[in-house]
């Protein structure tokens, strides 16, 4: 084994039940050779952080379409900072207006992918931003 596989947690924070995107991304990342863990619906920020620790992931992908991102995402990035887990790459997707994306980037969400994004673009972004030993 020359290379460890990139481990990704795909998470659905909050009460939003729209998981088509999350599931499609999960599968695309897996097909691209990554190890993918999907949390399922209705995850609290605490549960997501816990899963990230347990699964020892390199990447957290957050998906939300309910409009609660400006409340839930900062909770998650704050917790990551508190627990010194900032080496984890955090990306997000969903129905997220452009002006919010600027704010989310400042909080430490490296990239927000909006509807219509090619999954290959996400794969490339992760590979570029993660150097797995």
């Amino acid at each position: 084994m020359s290379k460890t596989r990139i481990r990704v947690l795909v998470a659905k924070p909050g009460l939003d039940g729209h998981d088509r995107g999350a599931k499609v991304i999960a599968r695309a990342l897996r097909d691209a050779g990554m190890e993918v863990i999907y949390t399922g619906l209705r995850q609290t920020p605490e549960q997501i952080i816990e899963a990230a620790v347990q699964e020892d992931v390199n990447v957290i992908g957050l998906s939300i379409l309910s409009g609660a991102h400006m409340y839930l995402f900062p909770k998650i990035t704050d917790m990551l900072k508190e627990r010194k887990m900032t080496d984890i790459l955090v990306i997000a997707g969903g129905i997220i207006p452009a002006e919010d994306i600027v704010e989310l980037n400042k909080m430490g969400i490296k990239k927000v992918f909006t509807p219509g994004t090619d999954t290959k673009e996400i794969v490339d972004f992760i590979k570029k931003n993660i150097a797995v030993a």
Partner: protein
Amino acid sequence: MDYKKVKKARKDWTDKTLDPVLKKFPERKEKFLTGSNKEVKRLYDPLDTENIDYLKEIGYPGDYPYTRGVQPTMYRGRLWTMRQYAGFGDAEESNRRYKYLLKNGQTGLSIAFDLPTQIGYDSDNSMSHGEVGKVGVAIDSLKDMEILFEGIPLDKVSTSMTINAPAAVLLAMYIAVAEKQGVPANKLNGTIQNDILKEYIARGTYIFPPLPSMRLITDIFEFCSKELPRWNTISISGYHIREAGSSAIQEIAFTLANGIAYVDAAVKKGLDVDNFAPRLSFFFNAHNDLFEEISKFRAARKLWAKIMKERFGAKNPKSLMLRFHTQTAGCTLTAQQPDNNIIRVTLQALAAVLGGTQSLHTNSRDEALSLPSQKSVRIALRTQQVIGYESGVTETVDPLAGSYYIETMTREIEDEVMVYIDKIDKLGGAPKAIENGFVQREIQNSAYQYQKDIEDKKKIIVGVNQFQSEEETMKDLLKVNPKIEKQQVEKLEDTKKSRAGNEVNKKLKELKKAANTDKNLMPFIIDCVKSYATLGEICDQLRDVFGEYKDSIKI
């Protein structure tokens, strides 16, 4: 018709007219596919419909098997109900939006609830943080419902409520508000979605496990058949199944399979099929492929009529009629060049109308970016009005009947849906097929294929994988007031202070006791809401007795 002559003519045309052209100018693609990847032939002619018996398979509108529509005059009698799904923030704000829509010519209300309401949490629950008032209006108690319908006479409008797991509670609140307005329950018109099976499959707002959930649903069937004869007790929904990525065929197959499960459950409870079946209604998606969608609606009507008649022995014609609401496909809206969405919505709405829908919601152009703005909602409503009043497609019933293509496609969809339904029967019915993940897996596979087709440019999405252009960001997006959550929590506290606590506790205890028996729970829930018990309190009683559903995820 002399099919021999047609056959000969077809051969002559192929040899003399078609082939020389094909040799010189090959077609754009080797294979042509519908939006759901069904193969489409170059041409359809009378030979394709030779075996379709008009009287048996198509017939006349308002007559069995209702392929051409559930009413004999369709839109010549009355246009479909133009019903825009709306609601956000608190009850006051939503009430203003409803009055605005009614003033602009909308003919029915469609209530969007926020996620905490849909999952049976009060606004002050820790799970509700950040979600209050976001995707719909927050309703904690009867107090909010009174404000929501203030100044809207409930005997004059029909109201559709997108509520599933706690549908019984919201319906109880609606009945209580009507009573305060002096409107008796038997005058109420409307629909509750009340379709839990598709929540497990695709939408995610479940609370309880399947068995007690089915019991609540059949309690509602029974209660309404006596007390609310004009109420649609369920809206069996393919919409969200399609949004989750299914094909057109899967949408119909899984929806009808769920429908079969509800009828089965009600019959097992001892209800007479002709007592409750007339109030079952459906909800479908209108996607991009115009002819496939039209055929899909026609096939669904025909299939349900056959199922109700042959499988359940229903005799009342109303039990056989598949009446449906349609919403244009949210998943087809693009964040890129959002104004193009207006055209997509127009075509999808046209499919719904040509497919004979009873009511319609048209999506707004900005919904891939945020909740729709007032201006975008108005364009969406105007789209329906242009189709209804200007396009002329409403002037004759089922205008595409007899089209070789439409009739062939209707028949093919019907056959393919039946293959799925047989498969689900063999698996033990829809609840079992959902439990073992069959349905979800099928949908996920289609969703993934759809995405790959777009990325491989097998499917072209204008502005996304072709014809991209520089764009400016869309302005005037709707923002939900961030203070809503705090205000809503304060209102809830006030309500709790002003109500008679003893009475609330007594009613909640009675409900819990009844939940442990097989008594119909509706009267108990109505008593609870009238005491101003909150949605969360009521659902907690039921959680204690029924437990909570846990999704087992398979990717």
